[in-house]
């Protein structure tokens, strides 16, 4: 499974756009990129998944360059409630029953 590298922590003011970049230099051809969010005292929550270019949903956008060696999770106009740990996971599309592999994640703190 591809190893991922993310910032340990980030701070942001409310209302700003936050971009969290994840490096995955040895990503395989059939690997997808998935992001999870975890609030304190809760289990992780699926945010978004992508393979290439750009994916957008109601929560976030995921930008993946052509070489796929990195990806960027973009959170528009964050609020205090977006304070959480964000995990970048890289692996097969998981429909083949591949377990999720979590790294240390990025701790995002949103301040007023």
């Amino acid at each position, binding site marked *: 499974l591809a190893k991922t590298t993310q910032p340990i922590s980030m701070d942001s003011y409310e209302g700003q756009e936050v971009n969290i970049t994840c490096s995955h230099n040895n990503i395989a051809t059939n690997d997808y990129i998935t992001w999870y969010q975890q609030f304190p005292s809760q*289990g*992780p*929550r*699926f945010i978004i998944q992508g393979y290439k270019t750009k994916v957008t949903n109601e929560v976030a956008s995921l930008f993946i360059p052509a070489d796929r060696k990195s990806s960027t999770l973009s959170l528009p106009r964050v609020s205090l409630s977006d304070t959480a740990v964000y995990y970048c996971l890289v692996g097969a*599309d998981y*429909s083949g029953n591949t*377990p*999720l592999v979590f*790294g240390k994640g990025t701790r995002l703190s949103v301040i007023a």
Partner: protein
Amino acid sequence: EAGVTQFPSHSVIEKGQTVTLRCDPISGHDNLYWYRRVMGKEIKFLLHFVKESKQDESGMPNNRFLAERTGGTYSTLKVQPAELEDSGVYFCASSQSGLSYEQYFGPGTRLTVT
């Protein structure tokens, strides 16, 4: 729709005792997973059920851990006998068939072994 529920939320036991954790997945989800996070470490996969069958138990640390999913509904994870290093947060997750990248996690059970 009810999410994944876990019981208890917190358990404190002495070394050598037995503890059973329970997970109720989202109704209709064939896939059920157990993960755990020990202090200061990443969340680690333990095992995966598809309905009542164990699909992958490669993450189970040793034979003191026994997971069951009778009837393909709820699951239990028993630790017997518990050791100090078993302390941590145990998460259960479930997903629909064919969508195992989108897993729904429960709030976790915090296990403290003293």
